[in-house]
């Protein structure tokens, strides 16, 4: 026993000695900072979801932000994936941090009366916010209460240099087929079949002609595709007519045709046999190992995998997005919609003792001075000014793409705070771009050699241009409309039909020869029994409301 205790004591001493060297960060915040001439306010910020859980105020950029705004942030964030549990306990206790980014749980906090409506503050103190949000402000009204709770960051992004979503195909396949685009589903699979026959292995591994995420959280990457093939943008489980009428396309001919095509391909052995019996990690591993010829997905999901392929010098296996459509479809919308989405971003809670101060801080975050800091970084370190124009040197260019550096420096990490549109058309009053990635210099120097070959092949200067540009929409994204708790039957129908679809996707695509139609009918019957389309009227009503109020 004695020996044990001495070992444990020794362990404690070592650990405490180690921690003694670095004094715990939070002790400094309270007392010492008060000694300076300007009074520094501290606000606590709680972030849900998985974005920037960083000690923002202690980064070099964060310190400058504190100097300008007089506000220091004490950042805390959700750990684990269970947002619902956290929202439930916090709202039950009624204790919140001053600022809160509720991610998907905004409704819970709103219903609990935890959020401070910002409408009056915007009117009184929101000079910068009014300037940058302008007409978008009316789109931020909560559908239930009509108040604005947060200044959504989900708005026009940096003018992209890659397409958002699309059918991703390995460069070598595209090259061998003389850079095809806007293919029909039949041609697309014929191309994959031919290539796989000619090249059955890649680096000794058997190729997988077509794959997709089929795990629980990823199966929308299959079930959402039919509407895209028909030319509609991604608006969730429904597509909308011009007048805003919602149509659930789960059982549409489009879905039938797409799944049937996948089923045929599966019978030919062209589909990843593990598609529905593997984890998301395994799917991404297959992408990173370069054996998947094509898949549907988003570029932002596979940036790490592309880095891995580059690391292995497998440039021919890097996938590029093209569009695939049903025969006769003229306009495709893979790049989706350009809009602002309410229900996101940082809110002020009722626990905040100084809501006006907090709001003034949010407004100050939107000022040009702070925006230059948080989007561009520190002058001299992260960007250079030449004749009043903000620009990047060779070295600074590299920093822009270095996510590790960005985190340390605190630059580009403030997306959740109110900010201007970040596209190339939005500029500061001195004519500079709001974001360094909009600089033509950045775009032209960004592409690597293997990418330039693709650019030449498709005769475009920006890979984003390979697909039709984002469209504006009268009602926004559509997928950001959620059914409220007051309609439990509809919530149930939505949840159940989603579960049924998840189950049947696997059955449909893996159906044995000649049984597809039977399985399809079975699927239709179960969906109808679950009243899968009972939610249409709610979505129609909401979208029509948006069309009326927004335009």
């Amino acid at each position, binding site marked *: 026993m004695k020996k044990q205790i001495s070992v444990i004591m020794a362990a404690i001493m070592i650990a405490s000695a180690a*921690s003694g060297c670095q004094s*715990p960060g939070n002790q400094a915040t309270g007392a010492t900072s008060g000694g300076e001439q300007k009074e520094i306010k501290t606000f606590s910020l709680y972030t849900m979801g998985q974005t920037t859980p960083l000690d923002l105020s202690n980064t070099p950029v964060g310190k400058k932000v504190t100097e300008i705004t007089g506000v220091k942030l004490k950042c805390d964030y959700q750990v684990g994936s269970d947002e619902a549990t956290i929202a439930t306990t916090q709202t039950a206790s009624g204790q919140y941090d001053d600022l809160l980014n509720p991610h998907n749980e905004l409704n819970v906090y709103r219903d609990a009366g935890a959020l401070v409506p910002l409408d009056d503050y915007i009117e009184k103190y929101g000079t910068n916010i009014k300037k940058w949000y302008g007409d978008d402000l009316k789109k931020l009204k909560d559908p239930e209460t009509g108040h604005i709770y947060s200044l959504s960051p989900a708005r026009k992004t940096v003018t992209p240099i890659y397409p958002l*979503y699309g059918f991703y195909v390995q460069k070598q396949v595209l090259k061998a087929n003389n850079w095809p685009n806007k293919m029909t589903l039949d041609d697309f699979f014929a191309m994959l079949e031919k290539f796989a026959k000619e090249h059955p292995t890649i680096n000794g591994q058997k190729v997988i002609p077509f794959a997709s995420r089929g795990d629980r959280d990823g199966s929308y990457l299959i079930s959402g595709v039919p509407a895209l093939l028909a030319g509609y943008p991604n608006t969730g489980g429904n597509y909308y007519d011009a007048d805003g009428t919602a149509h659930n396309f789960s059982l549409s001919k489009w879905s039938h045709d797409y799944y049937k095509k996948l089923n045929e391909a599966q019978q030919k052995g062209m589909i990843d046999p593990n598609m529905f019996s593997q984890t998301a990690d395994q799917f991404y591993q297959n992408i990173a190992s370069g054996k998947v010829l094509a898949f549907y997905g988003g570029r*932002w999901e*596979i940036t790490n995998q592309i880095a*891995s392929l580059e690391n292995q010098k497998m440039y021919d296996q890097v996938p590029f997005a093209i569009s695939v459509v049903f025969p006769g479809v003229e306009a495709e919308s893979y790049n989706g919609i350009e809009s602002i989405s309410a229900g996101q971003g940082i809110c002020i809670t009722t626990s905040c003792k100084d809501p006006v101060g907090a709001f003034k801080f949010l407004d100050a975050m939107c000022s040009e001075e702070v925006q230059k800091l948080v989007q561009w970084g520190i002058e001299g370190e992260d960007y250079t000014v030449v004749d009043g124009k903000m620009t990047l040197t060779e070295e600074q260019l590299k920093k822009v793409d270095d996510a590790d550096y960005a985190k340390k420096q605190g630059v580009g990490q403030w997306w959740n705070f109110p900010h201007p549109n970040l596209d190339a058309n939005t500029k500061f009053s001195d004519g500079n771009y709001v974001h360094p990635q909009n600089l033509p210099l950045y775009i032209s120097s960004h592409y690597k050699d293997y990418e330039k070959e693709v650019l030449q092949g498709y005769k475009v200067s920006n890979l984003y241009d390979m697909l039709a540009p984002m469209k504006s929409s009268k009602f926004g994204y559509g997928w*950001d409309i959620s059914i409220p708790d007051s309609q439990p039957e509809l919530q149930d129908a939505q949840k159940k039909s989603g579960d049924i679809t998840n189950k049947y996707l696997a059955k449909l695509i893996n159906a044995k020869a000649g049984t597809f139609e039977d399985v399809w009918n079975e699927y239709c019957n179960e969906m109808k029994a679950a009243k899968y389309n009972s939610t249409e009227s709610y979505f129609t009503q909401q979208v029509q409301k948006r069309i009326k109020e927004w335009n």
Partner: protein
Amino acid sequence: MKVFHLHRRTTGDVVFDIINTIIMIFLIIVTLYPFWNTLVYSLNSPVDSLRGGLYLWPRQFTFSNYSLILSEENVYWASVVSILRALTGSVANVLCTVIIGYALSQKSFVLNKFYSYLFVFSMYFSGGLIPGYFLMRDLHLINNFLVYILPATVSAWNIMVVRSYISELPKGLIESAKIDGASEFRIIFSIIFPLSMPVVACILLFVAVGQWNSWFDTMLYCGNNQSLSTLAYELQKVLQTSQSLSTQSSQAQALIPAAMRNIVTPQSVRATMTIITIVPIMCVYPFLQKYFVNGLTLGGVKE
């Protein structure tokens, strides 16, 4: 000890030992693999790990995963809290477990029946998240170290296990002590404890490991108090910051700018976390192991 057995070994014995050894070696391989594979991932370059296909050896050896986690300043103080937590928590629990276990093993104890129902049923009842939170708040246990200890002091499962162990102890010992006029305290601390060391060591281990690994209560009750943060929680935080958003795919996430995404992959961080968590346990383990592997038998076997 070997001599004692050797002169009695029959062919059956030898065959048994050989088969047993083969089974055990198979078991070692099978159960070591998850740990070994985790170790391999923790020592492999994260970008390379994305390709998968890592089995027995790292492909691109690196310590970067470890330096990433160990460069977090908060990890060190949190380890101290974790050690204190595991230590206090397990001692408190073992104390309670042996005392109640002893009381329940005494069939003549007046409250035996009542306690038995009370403790056993508590295992299957839960008031749920919200009442639990309110209770901690009303008891002023939020942001209080005791929130780790008090609710975890009484464990019905442990008590029942220890009770059944104590019931099997030779009755004569306790009874003769009572006749000698020993108080209940004396009986518990000078007879029951030493005789129950195998099971006590076992419970100590279970509780300490449970305390060492738990992070959800830290988040719920002490989430915004850095000085009460635990290692497990800090590691979860590191994992959270390295989570590539890809596995949590949703439409809105497509809008988040690239600079806010993470390069480190969760697989590598998770593997490294696991190793960092296990190492201290493995250091303490032999001290407890000897009680239930050698057990009391050690004293009885002639060397």
